[in-house]
């Protein structure tokens, strides 16, 4: 089983590299994993879109909020896990999807139940999203679906690229200054695809500090903040409401969907499209002091 999956994954990767349609190396229906366990929010979001519910053994307890923001109800009735290695024994999956790092115990227990682990890296570019979609699609036995999602995502991105903004807006994703997405983040890729420049994009930074003073001096043309979609209360929402920010950016704040900005997903392209719409609808900027 594991060997078949590995061959399928290698085959899909080789086919993609050679430009052949991935469908040519799809494993037969009998080798598709039928008890897939996802141990990471981002892989939850991928598996919920790629695989019928009946083949999902469990998703993480965080999946509900993510699904609610992107595709409400898609997770209904699916058992939950808390990302612990012990749950591998109780749920006995035949495929495990995990984030960048899985613990030694997770790997040992996975070996014990005979389930391969697919480690899915954190996507920070749209190329990364294509790569992980194909990787997960091949692993779960749904490469055509994955390829169709890549095509839809690319069509959205191509639409945006075909109609570039005359002048890129200078923006920053700011909800308080303690963790602002930098260059190596999917937020940065979304902002650039939407036709803007992330002014907090420092080389090699995923997230970094960018305090209110830096914000005032940099004078971005719009502030983006997480909170579009159902979110639980947090200090972030309050921090982004500093009175000087309200005063200067009251009508130039744009909410984005947190999930599509934290996990590289096909929806990240839609997020870029939504951002472009919001940029185009911004009122004229008043002169800053």
């Amino acid at each position, binding site marked *: 089983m594991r060997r078949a999956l590995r061959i399928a994954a290698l085959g899909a990767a080789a086919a993609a590299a050679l430009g052949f349609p991935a469908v040519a190396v799809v494993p037969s229906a009998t080798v598709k994993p039928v008890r897939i366990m996802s141990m990471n929010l981002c892989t939850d979001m991928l598996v919920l879109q790629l695989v019928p519910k009946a083949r999902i053994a469990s998703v993480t307890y*965080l999946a509900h*909020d993510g699904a609610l923001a992107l595709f409400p109800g898609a997770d209904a009735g699916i058992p939950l896990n808390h990302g612990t290695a012990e749950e591998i024994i109780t749920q006995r999956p035949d495929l495990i999807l995990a984030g960048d790092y899985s613990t030694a115990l997770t790997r040992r227990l996975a070996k014990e139940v005979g389930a391969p682990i697919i480690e899915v890296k954190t996507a920070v570019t749209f190329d990364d999203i294509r790569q992980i979609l194909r990787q997960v699609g091949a692993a779960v036995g749904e490469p055509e679906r994955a390829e169709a999602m890549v095509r839809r995502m690319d069509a959205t991105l191509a639409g945006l690229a075909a109609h570039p903004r005359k002048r890129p807006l200078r923006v920053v994703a700011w909800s*308080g*200054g*303690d*963790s602002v997405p930098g260059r190596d983040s999917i937020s940065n890729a979304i902002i650039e695809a939407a036709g803007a420049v992330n002014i907090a994009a420092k080389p090699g*930074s995923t*997230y*970094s*500090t960018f*305090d*209110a*003073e*830096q914000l*005032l*001096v940099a004078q971005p043309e719009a502030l983006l903040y997480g909170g579009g979609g159902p*979110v*639980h*209360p*947090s*200090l*972030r*929402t*309050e*921090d982004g409401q*500093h*009175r*000087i920010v309200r005063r200067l950016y009251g009508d130039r704040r744009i909410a984005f969907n947190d999930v599509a900005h934290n996990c590289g997903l096909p929806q990240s392209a839609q997020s870029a499209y939504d951002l472009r719409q919001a940029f185009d609808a911004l009122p004229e900027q008043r002169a*800053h*002091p």
Partner: protein
Amino acid sequence: MTGRWTPWVAGLVLALAVVASLFLGRVVVSPMDLVRGLMSPDLSLASLVVTELRLPRAVLAVLVGASLGLSGAVLQGLLRNPLAEPGLLGVGNGAALGAVISIYFGLSQAFPLATPLMGLAGAIGAGVLTFAFGRGGTLTLILAGSAVSGITLAVLALALNFAPNPYAGYEMNIWLLGSLSEKSWDHILLAAPFIVAGLGILATMGRTMDALSLGEVQAKSLGVDLDRMRVLALLGVGLAVGAATSVTGSIGFIGLVAPHLVRPFVGHQPSRTLLPSALLGAALLLMADITTRLINTQSELRLGVVTGLIGAPFFFWLVLRLRKTAP
């Protein structure tokens, strides 16, 4: 240096720290521009930086630092214990717990005063619990305070365990390390009335502390109502530190260190440590805050981390000093 000059020296250190905090930040603005920004009614980048960002941050640091310094001095005098500080009575942790519950349930979004009020309720609740179990003696009060601290920390950890989402958990963790960043006049308006009321109560405790330095029995014979004074101290610490913690998060060590730094200069008369401890507490917190601003790290360096890094080695100094002075 004589004790008479100590408050002036502490005040001068504080004034210098305030001036430094107005001129230093992540962004370099020339001192002339900042002064012009302060004086001029016109809106300029420099005036916004100084009046809306640096000045409120400095004012809040002074209020919070003074609360911690004065509370530490009062508690060390009242409990006659050199390790006493607001955290010892569970008050600081109680405030943090109240504030975290307010964030957890989204009360702060529904009602802006919810976080400081819940912080205050947590601080006073923890204080009442400490007093209810610890009344009757200094040692029992300290033991009860430790127990309440332990319980509030455990409940805090429980809240972190069941945080509604990973960000809330991360933020609650950050909350426990303290920060003055992104604080505005709105936060000061919320917390200042409670802090000032608490400081007012604590400032009246000098005579009791002097009487207590003779021993509990002697203080009682001088007409000091010890139970009433302990309640007042708890109320004062609860109001001041509770409101401070609910706005800035937990900040340790200032309350412990400030009174020890001024004590050698004021002749060990407890009442004379109060004002200098408040002033020096404010100055220490401002200096720690300036440090967090100037060290440009990828993740924000939290205030509680700086005060801890400076404050914890202070214990070694305290141990060495006790060993030298012990008979």
